[in-house]
């Protein structure tokens, strides 16, 4: 089976991978250890594998890894880690917007993408921005509250 060599950066780390043509970005990222990108439906329905590809939120299961050649990829751990949390992550903790945590990496990525584009989203904007991320635990209410609060926090942080 023929493989290609591709390069991309993940959370600022340069990666060189030998990939097969049919391999998805999701499978490739998990294969080399970025297991924070979650595998569930592999059909673009659940959003658990959302990553930023050159700043745009995509479902990694719908992108062939070869398409990511030369791109900058950001996973949830590129958005923030335990020691350096992004406001979206801080507020998901504070507002109770996380339960089992399986959908959360995708939620964080989608919410960051939303706030990067729209720093003052309404509840409806947030509902739309997260429409591709299924959560079975929370009923979404506390996630909406967290994203709203993160927007306020980022605005206040920016003003100071």
């Amino acid at each position, binding site marked *: 089976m023929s493989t290609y060599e591709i390069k991309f950066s993940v959370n600022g780390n340069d990666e060189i991978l030998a990939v097969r043509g049919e391999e998805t970005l999701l499978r490739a990222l998990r294969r080399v250890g970025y297991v924070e990108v979650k595998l569930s439906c592999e059909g673009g329905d659940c959003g658990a594998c959302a990553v930023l590809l050159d700043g745009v939120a995509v479902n990694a299961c719908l992108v062939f890894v070869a398409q990511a050649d030369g791109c900058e990829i950001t996973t949830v751990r590129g958005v923030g880690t335990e020691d350096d949390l992004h406001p979206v992550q801080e507020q998901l903790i504070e507002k109770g917007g996380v339960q089992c945590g399986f959908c959360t990496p995708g939620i964080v990525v989608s919410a960051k993408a939303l706030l990067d584009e729209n720093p003052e989203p309404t509840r409806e904007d947030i509902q739309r921005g997260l429409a*591709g991320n299924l959560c079975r635990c929370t009923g979404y209410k506390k996630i909406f509250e967290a994203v709203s609060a993160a927007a306020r926090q980022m605005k206040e942080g920016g003003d100071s």
Partner: protein
Amino acid sequence: MSERVVGRPHPIIDAAEKVSGATIFIDDLELPGALTGVALRSPHPHARVLNVDTSAAERLPGVAVVLSKNNTPDAPFGINHKDEAAFCREKVRYVGDEVAAVAAADEATAREALSLIRVEYEVLPTVADPFAALEPGAPLVHDSVAGNIANEFHIKRGAIDEAFEKADATFADEFHTHLAHQAYIEPTGCAAQWHPDGKISVWGCLQSVFLIRTFMLAPVMGMSADDFRVTQTKPGGAFGGKLDVKAALMAAMLSRAAEKPVKFMMSLEEDLIAMRPRMPVHISLESAWKNDGALAGKRVRIVAENGAYSSLSPAIMSSIALRTDNLYKTPAAEIQGRLVYTNIIPSGQMRGFGNVQATYAWESHLDNVADGLGLDPADLRLKNYTEKGDVSLHGWKIASCAVADATRYVVREMDWKAKRARGGKGRGIGLASCIHVSGNKGFSVELGPDDTDPSSGVVRVDEEGGVEIWSGESDLGQGATSVMAYIASEVMGIPVDRFKVPPTDTGYMPFGMGAFASRITLIGGNAVKLAAEDARRNLLDAAAEAMEIPADELEIVEGEVRAKALPERKMAVGEVVRRVGSVVEGEGKWLAGGDVLDKEKYGNPSTTYSFSTHGAEVEVDMETGVVTVLGVCCGHDPGRVINRLGAEGQVEGGVVQGMSYAMMEGLAPLEGHLRGKNFHDYLIATSMDAPPIEHDFFESMDPYGPYGAKGLAEVAINPITAAICNAVYHATGGARIRTLPVTPERVLEAIEEARI
């Protein structure tokens, strides 16, 4: 209520690792050298297995082992009936039934090997419909089970015939529920590692690490439960579906045969066709009433769809049959239940354990009754609710109850009287209530070590002042172990952020039955509370020696042992532990109250009971039948809230999950084949569907609960379906949804029916 921790809002204790993607779920677990395990599943709902030829698959390079009926023992397992084998033997009984399994070097090789397995089937007539399955001469799903009846009962309690003879009014209805999946986002999987001493380690997204050993792994593999060390990986959602996980058996059997570690991860499609979704049920109700709205008696007839194998289905049917009788003062009842084998995916438990279905039917019926009697539906309920101190018709002892307060709250907050008066023209409101157990003694007989439903906890304080809690009760992600940490923090005077609760592990943790039947907060919480009290005593005794102050003159505040009279004399708990020279720990054990039910299903199955009332406001497009839930308002009685943020999350999650079940979900079996195979055809609620939710808690301060707390997981979902259906009924001037889910087609049919 002067508690420092209990009752306040706290983030769950593992929230930071979860939001940063650091949590290790089963598919993230690294096992060096692990093989990939996959199953060959039946493509037929019903067929005789004439021959399984695995020779070509075994010859494929990279394949370590192929298992099938040819090389595994005939050791059936099952909780209520031993009716399922690891691999199909004489027959396959549903699409998805495991026929063979392969462990290979990688997934591609394993899947190629599956394609090389030749199975010769003789296709048999499919028994898809439960009523057809009951007809004389119907094909048998299990050749040894006459009439396809997996379980049946007929109970008469109280003067039921007289109740109907002397009634001022009687009402009758039929309701039908659908096959719906737990639809957790993490597909199910397990890993296993065989060790040269013959023992096996198993990891997985499991609700109960202890029970999976005793009812599945040990009996099928001919080993003792102690030969398995089972460790939970945090489940990415469970909702009942990860109690009965055959992936654990597949991984363990493949690992033993290959003598190598094996990971067995199911795809979402496999999960949707081969796990244990919520039981479909057909419920006929008749009820007898006095003109003043007093319930006189009820008759219930149930046909429940078992699917191909039984698992916990008899217990689920029992729950459907009896539960709602205990929510209202019911003087007499007659209950008949028949559980029917079919060639459909085995049905099972999902959040509510049958009570979602039962509550949908009974609470929908109640609004029809209220209409017939000319009474307000809220008033009818308030007149008949059970109360603290009651012993129900079936022997349930109501130790605490605030359901009436919850209902009055919903009525007040929703502006009930005004909106009820306005109703119709496509806008309406409805409500429904429920009762639920906090643990169920019945499970301890079938699944536990004996009939005591025990739980134990160990609380260990280390030399840095950190505290670890070991409990056999698992967290499914909703914060159960966080509740334990808050309880222990309250008892011990040590800040919450010093606590850790690792996932359950049979290797070193004390026994617990695990997460189901809303049992963790009450049963596990009490055990941990006792353990924390013991640890606190031991800490104070050690500090007394180190500080040369009597223990009764010491207290623990903010992680420091202080002399009550001289607060400047203090010692950090970590320092106390260092002085002792080892870990300071405490142990606690708590046995659930209640009884094992007798043969007539009489008795008090749980220590105590929780309640809730859900209200919904809907808009119905009378032309298209589309229903929009405009808002939900609900009141819950969880005894006492331990963690307000977590409790709110349980409620909001339960409501949306219930609404999703009611309105859009369904595996839609057609002649034994399921339609939902991914999240684009098995729809669950998205952020766009989530309605505004207002809610509050009505704390009945249960006498048995830790700080008065009882279960909340299932009362959070049970009533919402009926609340929505009752709101649709109100909005449309009488369109009654008798078959779930509430699709536009069904709403239009019901509107048409109501016009006639």
